[in-house]
């Protein structure tokens, strides 16, 4: 990887604890993400990785702790507010609008970029029309970037899995986010699709300078892509360091390989 352009802290997570009833899902987690960084969260199944992303984008409301994004500190917020502040995401089990075309899905991602009021939109004239055309151009650029021109008009529910993942990334990118959360972007892909996805992630980070936080199980991918890696296990923070240090960390190795409890 070429020289990295890492800036100030954009997201700071402080002492987050989250539980559902008696289940403690996250226990006092603190970490930060810097501008322009690719940050990974790893851990065995049920470690609380997805919950952590859900806390950041407002789906879950933690009982304790705070989140500081671009200087604004908050305890909890509604997901659509998080989106309007510049947090976009993809989901572990693809959450696309299945009945809609690829283009429409990506256009939906530009929802917050479009401002004309309902009145103009209902009539589909004037400023609403101009705006629609401008945003359509932006959507087409993303389609070109992700190399999915051929499926522009296809309903996404009918696309193969790998392509759906790509469209979902496109929808998130359409919002031009400051922070992009990717929940297992390569799960269930073959090695060729994984390579493509890796390249897109690197390109997004490189060309648009987008800060990325991702969850991934493929250790090769994680160690190659990430600037820093956060390791969770049973809701607890095991390690938080550069890939080389994490790789050799004994607690991490134990958590992944399992050690007998005395």
């Amino acid at each position, binding site marked *: 990887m070429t020289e990295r352009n890492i800036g100030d802290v954009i997201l700071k997570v402080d002492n987050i604890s989250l539980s559902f009833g008696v289940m403690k899902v996250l226990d006092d987690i603190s970490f930060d993400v810097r501008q322009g960084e690719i940050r990974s969260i790893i851990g065995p199944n049920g470690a609380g990785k997805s919950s952590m992303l859900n806390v950041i984008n407002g789906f879950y409301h933690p009982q304790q702790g705070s989140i500081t994004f671009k200087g604004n500190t908050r305890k909890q917020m509604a997901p659509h507010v998080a989106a309007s502040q510049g947090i976009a995401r993809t989901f572990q089990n693809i959450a696309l*609008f299945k009945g809609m075309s690829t283009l429409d899905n990506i256009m939906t991602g530009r*929802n917050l970029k479009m401002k004309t009021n309902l009145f103009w939109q209902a009539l*589909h004239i004037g400023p609403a029309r101009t705006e629609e055309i401008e945003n359509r151009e932006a959507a087409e650029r993303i389609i070109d970037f992700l190399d999915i021109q051929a499926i522009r008009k296809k309903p996404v529910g009918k696309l193969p899995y790998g392509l759906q993942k790509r469209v979902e990334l496109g929808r*998130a990118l359409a919002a031009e986010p400051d922070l992009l959360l990717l929940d297992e972007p390569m799960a269930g892909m073959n090695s060729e699709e994984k390579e493509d996805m890796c390249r897109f992630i690197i390109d997004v980070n490189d060309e648009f300078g987008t800060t990325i936080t991702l969850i991934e199980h493929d250790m090769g991918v994680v160690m190659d892509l990430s600037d820093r890696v956060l390791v969770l296990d049973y809701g607890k923070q095991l390690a938080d360091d550069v890939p080389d240090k994490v790789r050799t960390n004994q607690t991490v190795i134990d958590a992944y390989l399992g050690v007998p409890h005395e």
Partner: protein
Amino acid sequence: MMFFIEVTLSGLMAGVMYSLVALGFVLIFKASGIFNFAQGVMALFAALTLVGLMEKFNFPVWLAIIGTIVVMIALAWLIERVMLRHLVNQEPIILFMATIGLAYVLEGAGDILWGSDVKLLDIGIPQGAWGWLWDQGIYVEKLELFAAGTAAILVIFLAVFFQKTRVGRALRAVADDHQAALSVGISLNTIWVVVWSVSGIVALVAGIMWGSKSGVQFSLSLIALKALPVLILGGFTSVPGAIVGGMIIGVGEKLAEVYFGPMVGGAIENWFAYMLALAFLLFRPQGLFGDKIIERV
């Protein structure tokens, strides 16, 4: 032959009237998966408000219509605040029950506000036989032609709105996946107000047509029952389905009444739609235009 054409045409027109009610159902079901039992009562309530504004406050027609639209939007906002907001993520059956409650509340409110007597609604829609066809020996009601034209405009308008605008896309997005919609910055609450407003306005159009035809009376809320087979035929999620379904039912029941009625002593019109719906449920439960029901395991 002339007689057959006349029956078919009058069936088509009656069908469009059913379609107008069914449209309101489809809009809400598409965007939120809620079967809104109160749709018929909403049409009644809109018509009552319109007549009330014209009679009690002497509003001119255009102002009364605008006033009623404002009332329907306020109603949508209120429904979201008081009802939907508190039932997020509940089972569809619970939301359905809530709309039954809403139907009673609205019916009562209409009664208290505007009184329960049958009212004439005349906003200047032409009535009587359409001259040109009447000369050919076919009787077609002008009002019904007007309703058909209005329905056509409404459908085109809704199609463009749903397919080509940001809010339309957001509506479809919410219908498809709540979480994903939230993650791209769509506020569910706003969307619900929009969708209930639009279906409130569609209810107003239906209320105007039915009110002009047979007077504004509380039995109007029962036309919602006829919309049910229309929805089963056309598919709960399809706007064109609501129109075509309405027409099939309208024509079907008229033809059945005229040609088979005498054999069984009449009154086929009353149950024909439901039998047709039953047949559809057996062989094509998603309706003619509805989304195919695919269950992945």
